[in-house]
């Protein structure tokens, strides 16, 4: 077996959470659909079921293409979903005109676990 010179680049994330702040379906100049929403991820990091250590994280998510159309059509705020995707960096200009970066999740699969 040949060992590749460089290891493959892996970037995979799987999360469950509640959809909030779903935005409008938009299109780029190349007519590609995209949509953004937030995912409240409820984590219980230590003793299962205690509830005391539960933390809620709000994560920014974006979906593109046909997945964005599906989110716009089938996913509503408050739905509990299973999400697969990758971590990506996005830049923006802050009030001080400085370029800032943040990490968001680019979804590749979204499955509704509640109605």
């Amino acid at each position: 077996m040949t060992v590749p010179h460089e290891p493959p680049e892996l970037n995979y994330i799987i999360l469950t959470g509640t959809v909030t702040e779903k935005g409008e379906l938009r299109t780029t100049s190349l007519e590609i659909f995209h949509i953004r929403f937030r995912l409240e991820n409820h984590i219980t990091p230590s003793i299962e079921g205690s509830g005391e250590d539960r933390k809620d994280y709000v994560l920014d998510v974006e979906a593109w293409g046909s997945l964005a159309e599906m989110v716009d059509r089938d996913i509503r705020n408050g739905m509990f979903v299973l999400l697969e995707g990758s971590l990506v960096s996005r830049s923006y200009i802050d009030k001080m005109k400085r370029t800032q970066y943040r990490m968001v999740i680019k979804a590749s699969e979204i499955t509704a676990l509640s109605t």
Partner: protein
Amino acid sequence: MDLRMPSINKVIISGNLVRDPDTRILENGTHLAKMSIANNQRYRDRSGEWQEKTCYVNIVAWRKTAELVSEYCRKGSPVLVEGELVYTSWEDRDGSKRSRLEVNARRIQFLEKKGQDTSYGDYSDGGPGGEPEPDDSDPGMPDDDIPF
């Protein structure tokens, strides 16, 4: 039966360290290592040419994993990290609220080959008590440090 919805949070990401890891030992003796990795993703642009974009991800490791990171990892070291995405917030010196996403590493594979040895290192906290402990100290690696 009343069931809870499952809680899943898992990240698998590879990349190269963008600088030497920041390692320290907390007052309670727990080893902590913080690092940032660059994950390169290739894609074809409109003209069919391959392009590359980089995602920088902050990683936190604890205990034995942190010790081994300190021992084996340097700027440029390739690693595969398995962990969970966590959201950290704190107040900076100006009293402003700051936050960032980072990966809390459960398992790190060191992908660098040592000499002719083709086996890859594979280290994790493992076993009971592998949960991270709260870090009371300043997160110490503000977003500004990320080299992009």
